């Protein structure tokens, strides 16, 4: 009997291994060429932040997605990592410590690890809501302390440092943003790989088991608290690295890095990216930086859009973008994506109309609220529209309404098609199983 199964894992995994190399190769390539495609300094700052956010979100998802621990205070660990790193950087700058700047993020990581070890011991005793509330409490505590202890946290001005210190190593001074980017990219790649590897280890697997059913885990020889605690520390370590990189990138660390808003952002965007898949948080991280940094440049209504997108995503795609992608990949794997093409086009087209109409109205309302006195002209996607003009409103309203109507039609059509395709796939699977 065991003979038959001997060969099975190999048959099963071989094709995946190839795919894995390709995927990791592509990931490395993407990190490598990104700054060549987006050259402006603003784009490069964003890329840097994305790299940092990827590490932080993946670290966060180690708790949320892998371990089922809903934390409301993970910024504490990335943030304290930032502070320790910036203090270290200052020590290096004053010549009191000889440490290459490229290793400073590790100091952040160790700080994250240390604080996770310290605070995690009490937090991981419980799971579920209790865990969430303790993290919320600890988060608020650390945040309040940060304003009370300006000696360490630098008050509201924060702590600043200069990353261009010490000898140049191989001509790298970390002055230019690009050099910092590549430092971040290297860390990002290594950390991502390490965290992925972690999901393939005994601890990683048991962590999943703890997420699903902590009670049972106790009866197969594992201490749930121990598992959570270890995961919490590892997560704190990676979060700390992200924090350390942040310190180098901004050269200033302020109390907001430990704040509730940051913790909340981790939660929101990891969920939006998709907590159930390993790569979900990566998408989430990109979205996070794009939303918080870029969107607010484009429009004053960015918070409204952000909130709206959240509502819609949670309602209609609770698995996040990663789940959407995986669902479509599955359809593609069965060669049925072609069937959905037209439905997607219709969906996209009508959706866009709806969005344009809606957004135009939102922009006009904002304009009337905030800038009315600057005249009625509102910039919208490069054009100028008259926020007081009847035709603008009628036009936008018309686009919005017809868009909504057609979108609903398209949506129904799409759902029907989608259902059909899924059914076909089910049948296909059954057939294959039967073979």
């Amino acid at each position, binding site marked *: 009997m065991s003979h038959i199964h001997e060969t099975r894992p190999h048959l099963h995994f071989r094709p995946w291994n190839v795919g894995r190399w390709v995927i990791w190769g592509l990931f490395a390539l993407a990190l490598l060429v990104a700054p060549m495609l987006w050259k402006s300094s603003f784009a490069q700052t964003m890329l840097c932040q994305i790299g940092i956010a990827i590490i932080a979100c993946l670290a966060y998802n180690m708790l949320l997605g892998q371990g089922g621990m809903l934390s409301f205070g993970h910024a504490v660990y990335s943030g304290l990592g930032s502070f320790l790193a910036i203090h270290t950087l200052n020590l290096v700058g004053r010549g009191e410590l000889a440490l290459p700047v490229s290793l400073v993020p590790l100091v952040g990581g160790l700080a994250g690890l240390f604080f996770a070890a310290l605070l995690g011991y009490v937090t991981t005793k419980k799971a579920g809501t209790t865990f969430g509330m303790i993290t919320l409490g600890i988060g608020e505590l650390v945040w309040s302390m940060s304003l009370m202890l300006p000696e360490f946290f630098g008050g509201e001005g924060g702590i600043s440092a200069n990353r261009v210190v010490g000898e140049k190593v191989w001509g790298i001074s970390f002055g230019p943003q690009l050099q910092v980017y590549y430092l971040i990219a290297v860390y990002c790649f290594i950390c991502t790989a390490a965290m992925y590897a972690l999901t393939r280890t005994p601890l990683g697997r048991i962590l999943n088991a703890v997420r699903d059913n902590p009670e049972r885990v106790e009866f197969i020889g594992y201490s749930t608290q121990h598992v959570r605690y270890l995961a919490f520390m590892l997560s704190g370590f990676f979060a700390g690295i992200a924090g350390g990189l942040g310190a180098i990138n901004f050269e200033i660390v302020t109390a907001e890095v430990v704040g509730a808003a940051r913790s909340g952002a981790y939660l929101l965007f990891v969920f939006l990216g998709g907590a159930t898949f390993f790569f979900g948080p990566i998408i989430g991280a990109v979205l996070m930086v794009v939303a918080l940094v870029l969107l607010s440049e484009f429009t004053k209504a960015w918070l409204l859009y952000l909130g709206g997108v959240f509502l819609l995503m949670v309602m209609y795609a609770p698995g996040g973008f990663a789940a959407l992608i995986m669902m479509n990949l599955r359809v593609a794997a069965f060669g049925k994506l072609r069937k959905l093409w037209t439905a997607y086009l219709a969906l996209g087209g009508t959706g866009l109309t709806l969005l344009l109409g809606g957004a135009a109205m939102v922009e006009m309302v904002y304009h009337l609220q905030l800038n009315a006195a600057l005249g009625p002209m509102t910039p919208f996607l490069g054009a100028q529209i008259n926020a007081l003009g009847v035709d603008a409103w009628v036009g936008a309203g018309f686009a919005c309404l017809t868009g909504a109507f057609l979108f609903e039609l398209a949506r129904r059509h799409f759902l029907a098609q989608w259902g059909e395709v899924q059914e076909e796939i*089910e049948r296909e699977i059954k057939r294959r199983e039967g073979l």
Partner: protein
Amino acid sequence: MLALENLHAYYGKSHVLHGVSLQVRPGEIVSLLGRNGSGRSTTVKAIMGLVDATGSVRWRDREELVGRKAYEIAHLGLGYVPENRDIFPKLTVHQNLMLGEKAPRRGAPARRWHFEDMYAMFPRLKERQHTEAGVLSGGEQQMLTLCRTLMGDPDLIMIDEPTEGLAPKIVELVAGYLRELKNRGISVLLVEQKLTIALEVSERCLVMGHGRIVFEGTPAELKADAYVRKEWLEV
């Protein structure tokens, strides 16, 4: 009283019932037999409006149940005892029973069952009445679910595997109560695994396989039909 006509049921996309037709007459015990996974529980849930279904379920020749909400169906006089002991774990035994009661309606006849009846039926429940139901023993939970549904005073009660996890003595007791229900004019649709009981108490037996009814007849006929028993009840 209850008539199913070509009932299909689905869990999401998977099609589980493939056209089930059956009747339950007033004051009758009908048992629904079949292997694991043959679709018995699904049938009962579909009648109760707990899974998506198409086809027709007529109640007292008037009401069509398919498409209605579970709570409306319950108010029409159907009762459902689930198989997996869906007691409300955080509530006490007594509160669980209270929840079995429905909001009183105008012009409704006097109720057939009261708390005392339940406690008389299963004294064990009376002993534990202020305990959280979640900590009850498996068998006690089974008793509780049965009583809870009875508190809703149904005219037809659908019971999914009522004897699972009950001590032999209590199984015997339950069989007795099923007959008692029948005597009080309540119809019973019994989903069972233990043939002994089912054959003993019911007037008619239905056997399901792969989401269809594959046999219908009296217990005696079923006992006699070796083929059906071999093909659809044993492996």
